[in-house]
């Protein structure tokens, strides 16, 4: 039974990882840009949420409604000020610039919030669970998973069914040909960054409600997001979800078997195995 229990937690955790990874996958897909500050933005969102709750009271959930639009704005701003200058540039400079951004965000958070760990209090929801047979399923992890799937569904509807979504995919395929259709690629890039940051804000708040967080957590989250993207294979949102779930499963099942080892190690090991065996990811296209 413990195995089933661990597997279910793994799948539910995978939803969170997919949420982290979505923005990363989107910016890479559309602009071939990797933002190394991606994880720090999630941590920033958790801190902002805690500030809002401390100032205005209530549950962290309402802050999502405020912070997701704020995240969109942050993404657009970052795109205009930083990322636009990095599209098509030597990866070394993309890495240095976004690495610098990561250092700035981490230390700004440290300055404002000190090194103490914080948590977002969601009250009794955090511990509520229901049982099917002998397996207990946490209500909050389930909710988190459902929200992640909803985000992915709405994103894939946006990409698949709307004019802007099609422009997105067209730009990702061939930016120059997209411009020949009248699509302003810079505007598309701004929307992509806006979505990337607002989804990672959401992920940060959900993560902060489950476990406490500190200003230095960002890089660890970035690695999870990155692993989910690579394991799932580039190029599809559902691949990212699958990658997130595979990562979550590796962590919980690994920790179940080897109880005194850190769970993230098993995720890393899965990542390295995928790299050695199927470098295009479990669900990736061959030419990716």
């Amino acid at each position, binding site marked *: 039974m413990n195995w089933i229990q661990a597997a279910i937690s793994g799948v539910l955790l995978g939803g969170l990882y997919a949420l982290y990874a979505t923005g990363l996958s989107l910016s890479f897909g559309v602009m071939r840009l990797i933002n190394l500050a991606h994880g720090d933005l999630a941590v920033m969102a958790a801190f902002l949420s805690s500030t809002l709750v401390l100032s205005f009271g209530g549950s962290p959930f309402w802050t999502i409604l405020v912070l997701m639009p704020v995240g969109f704005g942050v993404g657009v701003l970052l795109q205009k000020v930083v990322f636009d200058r990095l599209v098509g540039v030597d990866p070394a400079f993309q890495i240095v610039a976004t690495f610098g951004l990561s250092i700035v965000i981490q230390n700004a958070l440290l300055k404002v919030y000190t090194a103490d760990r914080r948590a977002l209090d969601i009250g009794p929801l955090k511990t509520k669970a229901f049982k099917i047979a002998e397996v207990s399923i946490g209500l909050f992890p389930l909710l988190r998973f459902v929200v992640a799937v909803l985000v992915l569904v709405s994103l894939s509807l946006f990409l698949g069914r709307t004019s802007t979504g099609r422009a997105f995919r067209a730009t990702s395929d061939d930016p120059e040909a997209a411009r020949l259709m009248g699509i302003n690629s810079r505007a598309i890039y701004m929307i992509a960054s806006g979505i990337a940051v607002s989804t990672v804000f959401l992920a940060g708040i959900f993560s902060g409600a489950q476990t406490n967080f500190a200003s230095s957590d960002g890089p660890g989250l970035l690695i999870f997001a*990155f692993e989910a993207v690579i394991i799932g294979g580039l190029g599809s949102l559902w691949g990212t979800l699958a990658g997130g779930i595979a990562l979550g499963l590796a962590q919980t099942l690994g920790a179940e078997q080897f109880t005194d080892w*850190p769970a993230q190690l098993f995720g890393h090991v899965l990542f390295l195995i995928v790299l050695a065996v199927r470098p295009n990811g479990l669900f990736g296209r061959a030419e990716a």
Partner: protein
Amino acid sequence: MSSTAAPAHVVRATTTTRILGVLAVLVVAWMAFLAAGDNPATQTKIVELCVFVVVASMWNLLAGYTGLVSIGQQAFIGLGAYALIVFGNGYGQDVYFSILPAALIALVASIPIALLAFRLRGAYFAIGMWVIAEVVRLLVKQYKAAPIKGGSGTSLVVPTNLYPKAERFQTTALIALGLAVLAVTVIALLLRSRIGLSLQAVRDNEHGASGLGVNVYRERFIVFVIAAFFTGAAGAVWYVLKIRIQPDTAFGVSDWTAPIVVMVVLGGIGTIEGPIIGAALWYLVRDYVTSTGSAIQLSDEWYLILTGLLAMVVALFFQRGLWGALSGRFPSLQVFPIRRRLVVGDEVGDHRDRKRAT
């Protein structure tokens, strides 16, 4: 082959390189004098500066000459350092003689790491290396028995019970300086050699290089392994001085790769001189702004925020870095004579020859 009219020869050193070379030797001699002195604070600074010169130069050799941008070089720092701990604390070996084998351990480890990480390109290689460094960190943390003692870390016992403190600082500073000189010399010689020629070709146009017979994978592999060796040695030297080691800092990305990247980009990526200048500048500025009693005393947080902003500004607007900008303006400016100037009688620069040949 057609006949050769005038004998051709290749000139490497110029007046500028000779003058700057003498200056460089003088700086090293001055540092050796300080290292051999009896001021532990100065000796500590020399060790720190030299270690960062080594690691930054090696990172630049990878990123600036082969396009392998890694944010996992801390893996080799930690491997070198922990190998030293194992030789010293575990097997009771003399620490100074353990530095070389520790570096070799890093070298050996780099081979399977390269085989795996070379499957990724660009930014994916960068983060993939980071994951690999994380795996090594977690494994070391997990080894809770002596001599590694897991996540809480341990201390190097041999030097403290064998050598008096003053002697240890002196020896370590001299070793660090020697390592830095060796590392930079190896890089300069490598770049002067045919491998260096191919690396610069690969950097400019990978596809074109392989079309001229360069085995790009092999060249990259060689450089990766060399970088791992020296980075491991630097990690070992660092902890001979610092004594106390913990996996989270020895394998810490913000302790190592973050400042290194800033140093290299600030100094000028893809030049030998850039990382050295970047590292020196970093130390001077950090010393000034964080030491108590200076005019602008900054907290660690503010200091790092400014560092991050500096990295962003340089990467966005000043990609050539300080040395890159200087040598762009004054092309003859180089400390290390790696360029080749061809002299063939009076044919080079003589336009009549061009007409004759066509």
